[in-house]
């Protein structure tokens, strides 16, 4: 949860967006690819995606079928070994990765879908700074994991619920950043000129504000995917929801109960490595993005 703390700037837009180029893809490429930590992260993510994709086609066993002896260490037939029932772990990882990632990505998209318009409109139309700023502060310090645990217990904890909750909890930082940017843009001479010459508000927002802030939206999507993944795997690990549904976190949920006493180290290692690599890959990308978003954090 590191990024969220570092995110606290004055909201000074001059600091946040020094170059106002509209070349979004150029900026994205520069930040994510020409930046070593991010490049490593990106490569890792792509590699894992490839691994999972290939796995779904190549792995012969379904993840929930008993295809081997229980607690079987890794061998050629089961490269990741088997769990306590005799189900192949590689299949579980390869198939279970999808629900986990789907939830992270979906919640990140929702959070941006809420936060981006919220920031745009609150920045352009009203002066609701204390409201948005206060909300962001509250969400920043909110105990997300306990809340999800509580809600997961009370309500039927489906993935949909998780997506919605995370989407709601993660939108404020983007909104605040976008708002700050929009407010700064509002004072630009060309925007004032446009307003005076009668260009409609919606037009200004859509053709000036949106492109300028698009980079923020993309950056925060990645950052939020990173945060979501961490939270989602932790929630799955705790057994909230349906631990019988196979997901990356739930593999470790069962491992925690059974692997230690059975000496099944592979059960803990392999799925965990995949999760760790994915999390670190996203974290590296998020780190580079954070640096661009908050130049104050850049080291000299």
């Amino acid at each position, binding site marked *: 949860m590191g990024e969220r703390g570092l995110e606290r700037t004055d909201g000074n837009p001059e600091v946040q967006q020094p170059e106002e180029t509209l070349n979004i893809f150029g900026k994205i490429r520069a930040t994510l690819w020409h930046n070593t930590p991010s490049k490593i992260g990106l490569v890792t993510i792509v590699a894992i995606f490839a691994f999972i994709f290939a796995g779904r086609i190549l792995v012969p066993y379904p993840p929930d079928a008993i295809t081997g002896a229980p607690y079987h260490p890794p061998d050629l037939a089961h490269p990741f070994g088997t769990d306590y029932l005799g189900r192949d772990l590689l299949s579980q990882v390869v198939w279970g990765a999808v629900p986990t990632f789907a939830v992270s990505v979906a919640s990140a998209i929702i959070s941006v879908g809420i936060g981006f318009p919220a920031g745009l409109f609150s920045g352009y139309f009203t002066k609701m700074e204390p409201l948005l700023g206060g909300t962001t502060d509250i969400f920043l310090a909110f105990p997300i994991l*306990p*809340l999800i645990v509580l809600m997961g217990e009370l309500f039927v904890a489906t993935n949909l619920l998780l997506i919605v909750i995370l989407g709601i909890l993660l939108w404020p930082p983007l909104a605040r950043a976008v708002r700050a940017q929009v407010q700064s843009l509002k004072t630009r001479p060309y925007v004032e000129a446009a307003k005076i010459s009668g260009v409609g508000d919606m037009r200004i927002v859509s053709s000036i504000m949106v492109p300028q802030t698009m980079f923020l939206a993309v950056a925060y999507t990645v950052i939020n995917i990173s945060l979501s993944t961490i939270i989602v795997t*932790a929630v799955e690990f705790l057994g*909230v929801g349906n631990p019988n549904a196979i997901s990356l976190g739930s593999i470790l949920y069962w491992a*925690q109960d059974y692997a230690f006493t059975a000496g099944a180290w592979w059960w*803990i290692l392999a799925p965990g490595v995949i*999760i760790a690599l994915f999390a*670190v890959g996203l*974290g590296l990308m998020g780190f580079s993005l954070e640096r661009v978003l908050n130049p104050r954090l850049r080291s000299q």
Partner: protein
Amino acid sequence: MGFIRRRIYTYIGILLVVTNLDFFLPRIAPGSAADILVTTALNSSEQRQLLLARFGLNKPLYVQYYLFLKNLFATWPPNFGLSFQYYPRTVTSLIAARLGWSMLLMLSSLFLSVVLAYFMARRSSLRVGKATDTAFMYGSISSQTVPVFWIAMVLLWVFGFDLRWFPTFGTATPNLPFGLAYVGSVIYHAILPVVVMTLSIFGQNYIVLRGSIQEVLQSDYVVAARTRGLRDRILASTYILRNSLLPLVAILSFSMAGLVSRDVLVEAVFGYNGVGDLLVDGVVNHDYPVLEGTFFVLTLIIILGGLIGDLLLVRLDPRIK
């Protein structure tokens, strides 16, 4: 004072949100608490009515709300009700017994992570070596994002089960009278969880500290002092340390939520009897009062930690009014 006032508003806001969530969520969730309590054997609606009355659930909503708030804020210690699983123990007593252990874990890790980050930052700043710096950076980023519960499981496996250097669960050897042996046992049981937590949080501290030390090193005062020949060591302990700690303290207030979440996960893996473990217990046992109470207390910890951090910041930073 404007800064502190804004922070307090934020904390009150969080408290309000959490309090209302704690009250309304269980009441709008499908199934009532009485349904959970009443086992399938006790099918009579009479029993149900009795239970509802016992827990005060048959009163009108606004009365329940008033009582809820009164129990929470007007009594000390706050009354969260009775646990379903450990009936008739009160949730408050359960939390109180475990609070100390969680605080032990969290405070130790917090302290160690700052110390570790400080020494790392000092190493990579004062002696400019690219390899060390890069390694530390990647180490910091990775350790923060790797799931803490997995780190916990791996370390538990290697050092607990495989090498058997450390115990695998619990906070201390049971039934030990208070004394040197007990303290030793506490430390022994706490080492692995604290190491795991520290590993997970030092990264953020290091990154912030490193950035701020570099900034300070280039400030005019420091450059001038060094030109005058003042030795780095003297500088480090006075000016550099004091000023580079400021952003770190600012960060600490915001990192409390992450600290608490990690604490819950670490306690879950190590079976460490803290409040986080109680939360997980509540999940397993469907114990709503425990869940609500723990949620509230964990939020309180975050708020208090944040407030202390903010007060510290105001004390240390002369620029904040």
